[in-house]
């Protein structure tokens, strides 16, 4: 997966702006290249939790575009690895790309949470 610098900074900026809480949003991908970060609202604002909230009409319209969607969220201080909560709450995003940004470490990482476990996706 390729996340260009401009998209990466959009994610990082949003994550810092939401401190002390976690931030979340959607990453739109074309052929594994991130083309846009759509910041969402954390409907359960907490340093340890997020619940992604986006206007359903806007979100449904994003679904009309020929782009893949990946959930992005920030971890305030822990490493950008899926936590137990992330795995338990993966729901319909099972098998989809899953991106985490650690604010403290300024690290971005991509994963795929599947029935069998957690696989890293290499980032460029």
């Amino acid at each position, binding site marked *: 997966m390729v996340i260009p610098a401009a998209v990466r900074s959009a994610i990082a900026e949003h994550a810092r702006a939401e401190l002390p809480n*976690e931030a*979340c949003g959607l990453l739109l991908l074309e052929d594994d290249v991130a083309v846009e970060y759509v910041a969402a609202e954390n409907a*359960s604002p*907490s*340093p*340890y*939790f*997020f*619940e*992604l909230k986006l*206007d*359903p*009409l806007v*979100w*449904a319209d994003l*679904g*009309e575009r020929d782009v*893949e*969607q990946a*959930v992005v*969220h920030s*971890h*305030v*201080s*822990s490493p950008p690895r*899926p*936590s*137990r*909560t*992330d795995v338990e*709450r*993966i*729901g*319909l*995003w099972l098998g*989809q790309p899953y991106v985490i940004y650690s604010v403290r470490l300024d690290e971005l990482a991509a994963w795929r949470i599947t029935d069998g476990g957690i696989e890293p996706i290499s980032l460029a």
Partner: protein
Amino acid sequence: MITVRIPPTLRGEVGGARQVDAVGDTVREVLDDLVDRHPALGPQILANGGIAPFVNVYVGGEDVRTLNGLDTAVVTGDTVILLPAMAGGASRPWSPPVATSGLDLVGSTPLVELTRFSPKPDVRLYAKLEGQNPTGSIKDRVAKAMIEAAEASGELEPGRALLEPTSGNTGIALAMIARIKGYPLTCVMPENATEERKRLLRLYGAEIVSSPAAEGSNGAVRIALQLAESDPRWFVPFQYANPANVRAHYEGTGAEIATALDRVDILVAGLGTGGTLMGAGERVRESYPDVVVAAAEPMPGDPVMGLRSLDDGYVPPILDVSRLDRKVLVSNQESVTAVRELLRLEGILGGVSSGAVLHVARRLADELDEGVVVAVLADGGWKYLSADFWDAPDENVETSMETTVWW
């Protein structure tokens, strides 16, 4: 006709369509019709007669959970939007539960990582702080389980009284549970048990019968059994032989550890009745079959408060030594040194047996390159404050321990 907009994550179930048509006068009828046409959608969007937990359903841009749920009315021309819910985060938010009595406060103790105490950064060492139970020890689990098992089997009913040979944590735990449930309790203990122990037991409402100091805890057992034979009113839970002891640790201590951690390579607990090692060991082994269940056992002739040497000649009936993967001997001096270090490095005030368990945990952790070690710390240091070892110079620790029988 209602239009249903399908998110990318669910399009595989509808042949790739971005939107599909369905009929119905309510969201429930629309979704049922949708599932009739595309059965693979069923488990994704409906569960237990309601909307599945990981999907959100909108009508006119409003979440139907905030409208009338599945009974929300729809009319021809409406659009129903399905979207994949998403939640997660670094960890689960937590708030303390509201208990209906002290009985509910037993168990669910915290696990804390001991980053400074761990010998290697890649070996994560966790302590299960059983001192956080209501009377301050792991024995609250055992006492509650034994009393409730006896109530369930009919052995214990109103009008009977409890009798247990113990000067220690089990007595205090039984006294708390007995007080809440309304049973009288008598504890038989060696006459040289500490005054603060006796005081604590009396405050919780227990009566005390003394046994000869020279006979130690075996003397207390002898006298308790004599009393029990003489009067059928007594019910003796007898933790050394009571399967509810093991079950409390299987269903409680062990299950809590297995649920909280993604991996356990070594589990260390003190050898006392064997309840923790048998119950928690078995439960953790079910989740992590390669776990090494290790017992911290005092060296023969060098008693560590709260622990039992099998060389003393008594093997508790609930203990099956063949289920232990490792048994590590620990001296009193090592136990005391470790418990003082725990306080100095981590700010945790543990009891002496916690020192023994941590000494063993650290030794076994040292054999790993990386991994997860869990140490069950049976109680806090609060009930041992009058002991001299806390501030005695290291070389004097041995002698400062010899004068009093604790438990």
